[in-house]
């Protein structure tokens, strides 16, 4: 059995908030939080990450896709993912089952 990478560990138990709707605009995404009534804009990296989270794939798939689509190594991806998840969580755009 292979152990989970850092990025996968971060991604496990992360779910997009169902009260958030989104719209892709070229390489960006606009999010609208129905409860807080706020708009957010995601840059291209965060936008792709958000889409993969919403496609309900497992954490390994999300990590593999990000590694395949972006010029990034596993370590850097893990650091980026952590920062991004932190921001998304802070704005209540995702939930994390602790």
């Amino acid at each position, binding site marked *: 059995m292979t152990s989970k990478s850092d990025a996968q560990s971060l991604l496990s138990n992360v779910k997009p908030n169902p009260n958030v709707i989104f719209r892709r605009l070229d390489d960006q995404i606009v999010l609208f939080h*129905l409860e807080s*009534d706020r708009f957010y804009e995601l840059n291209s*990296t965060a936008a792709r990450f958000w889409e993969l989270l919403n496609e309900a794939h497992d954490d390994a798939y999300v990590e593999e896709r990000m590694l395949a689509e972006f010029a990034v190594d596993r370590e850097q991806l893990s650091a980026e993912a952590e920062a991004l998840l932190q921001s998304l969580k802070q704005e209540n755009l995702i939930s994390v089952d602790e």
Partner: protein
Amino acid sequence: MSNTLPLDQDRENIVCQASSRWLAVFTSALPDDLPGFDGQLVAGEGRSRKLYLHQPPGSHAAVWAERAGCGVIFEGALYNARELQNELADIPSASSNDAEVILTAYERWGEDFLKRLRGSFALVIWDSTREILLCLRDPIGTHPLFYSEDRDALLLSPSVQVLVSQPQLSATVNRAALADYLLDRFPLMEETFFDKVSRVPPGHVLRVSRDERRTYRYWDPAPDGKVKWLTPDEVERFDELFDQAVTRCLSLGPAGIFLSGGLDSVSVAAVAAHRANSDGLTKPWALSLVFPDTDVNEEITQRGVATQLGLPQVMKRFYEATGKNGLLAGAVELNSFLPAPINNTWLPAYHELVREGKSRGCKTILTGSGGDEWLTVSPMLAADLWRDWDIAGVYRLWRTSRRSFRRSSFALMRALIWTFGLGPLVIPPVHKFVKRVAPSAVRMRRRIFVPPPTWLAPDTELRRKLQDRWEQKSERETHSGSFYLREAKTALDHPLVSWEIEELFNFGQMAGVRVLHPIWDPDLVDLMYRTPPFMLLSDGRTKGLVRASLARRFPDLGFEQQRKLEATRFYSSLIYRDAHNIRKQLGGSSALAGLGVVDERALGPAFDRLLARGKIGEAHLAWSILNLESWARAHVG
């Protein structure tokens, strides 16, 4: 060769857009009585009624000020703040916010000063000494303001969503408004698509005192329905006021301009480029959508104007802007974000254009909106001319229309003789007479000639309500005076106009820019409203006030002979191309059927017949059904 992308580290991962999500509560109850409310007391300490303001954490969209029991909440831009400060010499300009300027002006001049305010704003004033609450939007209504009542409290916000998300308020959608929409009827200015939310109409004050609540127009180019027509010398102020209008918009930050090839947006671009050059401002970006259809393609003009004005330009192909799913799918998607069904179906394409502008530093987007309302004349002028037996005037109007629109001479003549000419003169008196001598005949006639479709409003209660609403609206209408002026008033007071401007405000909030419309500037509208109609048609073509100037500025682009492009054919082709698929994706009209707005079983075959006929004039109905269904799905709890 690698096809991977670099991480986007130039920009922050997530940017929260500044938005107008404040809530003002005017109440006699303690705030503890309002579940979850943690507002700031603005005014009314020790008084029976108080005004509170709640803003989301970290948001400072609204500013407020209080003195001696009088409180002001203000959000938006006040263009003439400095001018007011200069007159109110006792307030230090450096330290005062716009709410303080307004508070001082109110203390000095009272309620009458409201008509002097210029800008894009929402404003609430609670004068607890006189016990008067004033709630208003700017003269044109470019900044929204809505309200709801809850027991003895009045809740106000620029956001419909903020109001309907209050736990004590119902978020029930307005069935009658949805059904009326499908009949192309918009009978009530104050209503929204939510039962419990009303709008403060543009240019109006909602005034609440101890004894009464009323709404009145505080800014009016024709008070009491009387117009003080301008002289030719006074009309010459047009250029100065147009310049002022554009300058006001440019004062709010780096700008982009939605540049089509039409006279309205080109005029805005020309003045903006001139102002940017003379004032040393960043040059505005020309943001142009290139339509594929030859009927509406203006690429040569768009490029020519930007080049000659020296404006940097983004040209976006229409199908590139709408993406692989197409325009209608984009509009369906936008409905989730909007507090009313999407009004401007082109918005998804413009959203992409805004994104391009924003990535180039644009904070505001200027549009040419308002040109069709104010730079030209309503064809209802024909009815006034026929009433005065001014046949030469009717001929002149026909000749002008023929040179300005791409319609056949015969169709234009028929419209000026009957539709906009003798018809409005003859039909109302005949109708009134028949109603007096044989009211049942009027009802029967209505049943015969204006039957609502069988699939609409299947329950009798809703059907009766629709009839009542329409009859009440007819009774409120004025049937005297100038037809032309009634139409001008409609351009200020029609719910669709307010709705369209509110939608652009919301669209701007979503996109993170401010969308502004210089031609709708109140000082400019005041001038155009009071310009005698044939002066607006100088040189025998519509939009005479700007046409001559553009023809001089761009001699090679043919503005002196340009006729208005109409996108109706292209628009209907998009609808007929995609409507079937959109309906399939939506899986019918279950949300509207659940509300009792349509009878799903009857609507299905009727919709199929509509698509099979493929008539240009019916395309909008097909889209309206899909539009309302998708909006209702996103907003019915």
